[in-house]
């Protein structure tokens, strides 16, 4: 993906660019040309067809096909339609969206505008978590640059298309990453997830059809339109096209955002991170953030794509990869994860709100050999089946994959 400007990606690359691309630099590198082409040469449905053909999957964690999502909203007639960029990156261990927000803010603005043109949106929001103070500053500055130079606002690039983007700040709430909770938050409410369906694509912000995409998903849009769907499908695996930004951290020599083809192996990522710190022995990796699963030594060659991890009973999620050495305490990490979910549970639905405190108590009992793992899994399974949103479902995977070790 050109979010990181690597045009032909053969090996995983650790991203070391730390300069924000200002408007001038962005334009010098072909920035906003795609928007101009889209607005003047393409019909909205042609764009959607291209995104569909690219088979781009949502990069926030749920991996829903982006083109299909856009199409839902495009099909509906409504007085207003909205486009939201979900920049509430809160999944523990994930920091790739922060990199895009801080270094490529204009690529997001261009992508959101293209999305709005394709689905008939008249207003956009970028919802950034308040903890990302630097991202907020840089996106705010980029928005001003875009307005000042006619890339946003009335009659953009004299195409007749008008579109506005506003920034909204969250702060201190993990559940805001859930799309309907985020919408509630923009509406000025507590971030309680809504019942689905209806999905936001049909009934979202203020009840109007709303496309809501993750930052990294949007960062893929301009390269796809510019280079075509087939180009995009050169990267990645058959079912997971494109490259991915993996947030690599933990007991490795070099933590950072690593761009690699979807389907890269854990071993390759570990090499790109320059191996385990202090030559410690690799024990396992937690993939997909706190709500992800543990992957062990015998799975070092497992391709990290959406379909392969799913087949292995795990998830790629946000693409966070936390490497643990033999000296790292997995037992206490798991307790930390459960405690995090308990704290972040919004309290709306009973299984999540009441489940997590009980789950922690049971886990402590398990550590004292008073109960069996399968008892914990029974509760985690009930929470998985009955919780309103993914937060209450999140404990199952880390627990299950940890107990299977």
């Amino acid at each position, binding site marked *: 993906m050109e979010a990181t400007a690597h045009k032909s990606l053969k090996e995983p690359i650790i991203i070391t660019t730390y300069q924000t691309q200002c408007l001038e630099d962005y334009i010098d590198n072909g920035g906003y040309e795609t928007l101009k082409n889209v607005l003047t040469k393409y019909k909205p449905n042609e764009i959607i067809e291209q995104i569909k053909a690219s088979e781009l999957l949502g990069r926030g964690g749920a991996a829903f096909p982006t083109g299909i999502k856009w199409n839902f909203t495009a099909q509906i007639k409504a007085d207003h339609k909205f486009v939201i960029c979900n920049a509430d990156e809160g999944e523990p261990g994930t*920091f790739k969206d922060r990199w895009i927000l801080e270094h490529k803010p204009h690529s997001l603005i261009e992508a959101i505008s293209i999305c709005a043109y394709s689905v008939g949106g008249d207003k956009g929001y970028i919802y950034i978590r308040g903890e990302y103070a630097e991202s907020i500053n840089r996106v705010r500055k980029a928005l001003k640059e875009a307005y000042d130079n006619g890339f946003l606002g009335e009659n953009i690039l004299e195409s007749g298309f008008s579109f506005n983007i506003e920034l909204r700040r969250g702060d201190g709430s*993990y559940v805001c990453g859930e799309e309907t909770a985020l919408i509630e938050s923009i509406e000025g409410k507590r971030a309680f997830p809504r019942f689905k369906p209806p999905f936001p694509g049909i009934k979202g912000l203020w009840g109007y059809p709303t496309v809501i995409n993750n930052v990294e998903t949007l960062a893929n849009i301009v390269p796809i339109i510019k280079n075509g769907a087939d180009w995009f499908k050169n990267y990645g695996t058959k079912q997971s096209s494109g490259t991915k930004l993996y947030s690599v951290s933990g007991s490795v020599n070099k933590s*950072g955002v690593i761009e690699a083809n979807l389907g890269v192996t854990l071993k390759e990522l570990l090499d790109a991170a320059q191996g385990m710190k202090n030559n410690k022995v690799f024990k396992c990796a937690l993939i997909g953030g706190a709500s992800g699963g543990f992957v062990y030594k015998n799975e070092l060659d497992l391709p990290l794509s959406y379909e392969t991890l799913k087949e292995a009973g795990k998830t790629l999620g946000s693409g966070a990869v936390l490497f643990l050495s033999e000296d790292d305490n997995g037992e206490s990490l798991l307790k930390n994860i459960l405690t995090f979910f308990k704290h972040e549970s919004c309290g709306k639905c009973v299984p999540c709100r009441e489940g997590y405190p009980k789950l922690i108590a049971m886990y402590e009992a398990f550590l004292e050999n008073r109960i069996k793992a399968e008892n914990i899994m029974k509760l985690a399974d009930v929470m998985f089946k009955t919780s309103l949103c993914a937060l209450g479902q999140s404990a199952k995977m880390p627990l299950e994959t940890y107990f299977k070790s």
Partner: protein
Amino acid sequence: MDIENILKKYSKDKSYLLEIMHDAKESKENRSLDLNDLKVISKYLNINLSAAYGAATFYSAFSLKLQAKYIIRVCSSTVCHIKKSYDILLFLKSLLNCDDDNLSKDGLFAVSEVGCLGLCDISPSMMINNQVYGNLDENSIKRIVEELKNGSNGT
């Protein structure tokens, strides 16, 4: 800037609630909101006081309790946990002589443990107000605290 002046920046669109609360918090010396702020804000946006109160108490960035000039948020999630963030937290609390409410003895600092700050590449990490600090150890923490006490950095 007082709350009335902050409100002038915004239209009466309900979706500005969090933005206004952010600005109000930033404008306060002790970075906390009080009930009066919420009354003024809710009246302006034409929402129930309970809705403003609900939001102010839901998002952990906002507090109606006594806060401090410097709010220290120590990341405690997965990666930082592995990198011994709990030791960092304990060290900070003892360095600052924090009371049971995690306020420092001199009233300058409020310490809290928070979920992932997305600074996993420079873990263990923390934020003081809007400033980011990473690769922490006891020495760097001592230095950072000292600098703030001497007033060399206020953001």
